[in-house]
């Protein structure tokens, strides 16, 4: 059995751990609220952009020279995967879920004879993938999560991907990230960016008779060429915001559990401590009494 001193030290250390985890939980909760707000604020831009792209894609349908971002390179050989993770750990299975899904996708694509490239975002992903797949990594971005995410991060990333598509180095590009459902659940998802998947137009979106009448200035192709890279950036930005919200949600849940576990283990250690102390006292008393009787 551990000595009283050892037990006291262990209880003390768990108590300070509990203080840290509960502080981290508070911080994550505050950050979560902010991240959720900015994710919501970014939604109208994405929605308006989707609507405009729908109009444009309908207008240029069947014409030649459609940009590669929309139509792809016409091949399906080289895939670029962009796993989005946080920079810091201590957020439960948040990052490993993304890693697992990415690894599964890599294995599947490789078994189909495709070439895979990686562009990890976030320090966690970089560390993880440089262990087993270092030769696949083309580039990486880190130091973005945690604070408020500027749009420039997404636009830089979008430009990188755009350049890779334009030079024909990659044929397909997909993001792998945690979709934010609520603070408890984040669902690892894979979302294809290039070639762009057009959503089926909902019946209530735009009345059909409106479409043909659109005028374009300067012309469809020019606007499309400007809009597509922008759309790529907006989608990446949305995913980055989801990741930020998810990270804080996951950390909040993980730290809540950790705080509760710490409390439980303090309780049981305290019990052991008290029992040991009582045993020691009893032993001493027995010694004294038996000493007194012997006289």
């Amino acid at each position, binding site marked *: 059995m551990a000595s009283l001193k050892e037990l006291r030290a262990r209880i003390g250390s768990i108590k300070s751990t509990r203080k840290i985890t509960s502080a981290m939980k508070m911080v994550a909760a505050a950050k979560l609220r902010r991240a959720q707000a900015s994710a919501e604020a*970014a939604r109208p831009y994405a929605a*308006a952009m989707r609507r*405009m792209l729908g109009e444009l894609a309908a207008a240029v349908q069947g014409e030649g020279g459609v940009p590669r971002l929309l139509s792809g390179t016409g091949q399906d050989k080289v895939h670029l995967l962009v796993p989005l993770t946080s920079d810091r750990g201590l957020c439960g299975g948040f990052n490993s879920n993304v890693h697992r899904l990415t690894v599964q996708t890599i294995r599947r694509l490789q078994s189909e004879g495709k070439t895979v490239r990686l562009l990890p975002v976030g320090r966690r992903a970089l560390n993880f993938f440089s262990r087993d797949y270092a030769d696949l990594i083309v580039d990486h971005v880190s130091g973005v999560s945690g604070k408020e995410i500027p749009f420039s991060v997404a636009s830089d990333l979008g430009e990188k991907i755009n350049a890779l598509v334009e030079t024909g180095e990659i044929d397909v590009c997909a993001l792998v990230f945690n979709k934010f459902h609520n603070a408890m659940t984040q669902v690892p998802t894979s979302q294809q960016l290039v070639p762009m998947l057009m959503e089926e137009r909902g019946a209530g979106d735009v009345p059909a008779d409106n479409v043909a009448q*659109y*005028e374009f*200035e300067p012309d469809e192709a020019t*606007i499309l060429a*400007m*809009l597509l890279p922008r759309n790529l950036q907006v989608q990446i930005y949305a995913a980055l915001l989801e990741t930020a919200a998810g990270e804080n949600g996951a950390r909040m849940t993980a730290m809540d559990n950790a705080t509760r576990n710490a409390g439980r283990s303090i309780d049981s250690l305290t019990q052991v401590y008290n029992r040991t102390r009582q045993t020691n006292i009893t032993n001493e008393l027995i010694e004294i009494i038996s000493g007194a009787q012997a006289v």
Partner: protein
Amino acid sequence: MPVLIEIISPEKVLVSREVDMAVLPGMDGDIAAMPEHAPMMLLLRGGVVALHEGDVVTDRFFVAGGFADITGTRCTVLADKAVPVSEISIDNATAQLEALSEIWDKTDKTDMTRLSVLQDQILAVRAEIAAGAGHV
């Protein structure tokens, strides 16, 4: 009958309300979005979006390029960056202009696509400074 103007930047919605007319800085010249305007999509240059109510300009926003989608009842502006004219920081913009001019000097003068992107950026920042100084 008013038209619903929305100015949206990637980060947030700046304006969403009904006005009588909105004048947009189109790539090929200014365009006014009014009720019953034919549906139209246009590219924007860096410049000022002015919101008119009656004969008065009620609000002015600087946008650094973007897209606009005009229909008979609404006008959606997707701005790369948008700020109310009153909040423009001329110092920031001037610093940005200097940085851009430096990049311009260093850029290979045969790289036409890069140059035209830079030119658009420089024009947008100049427009921002002009708008901030009230010369529009």
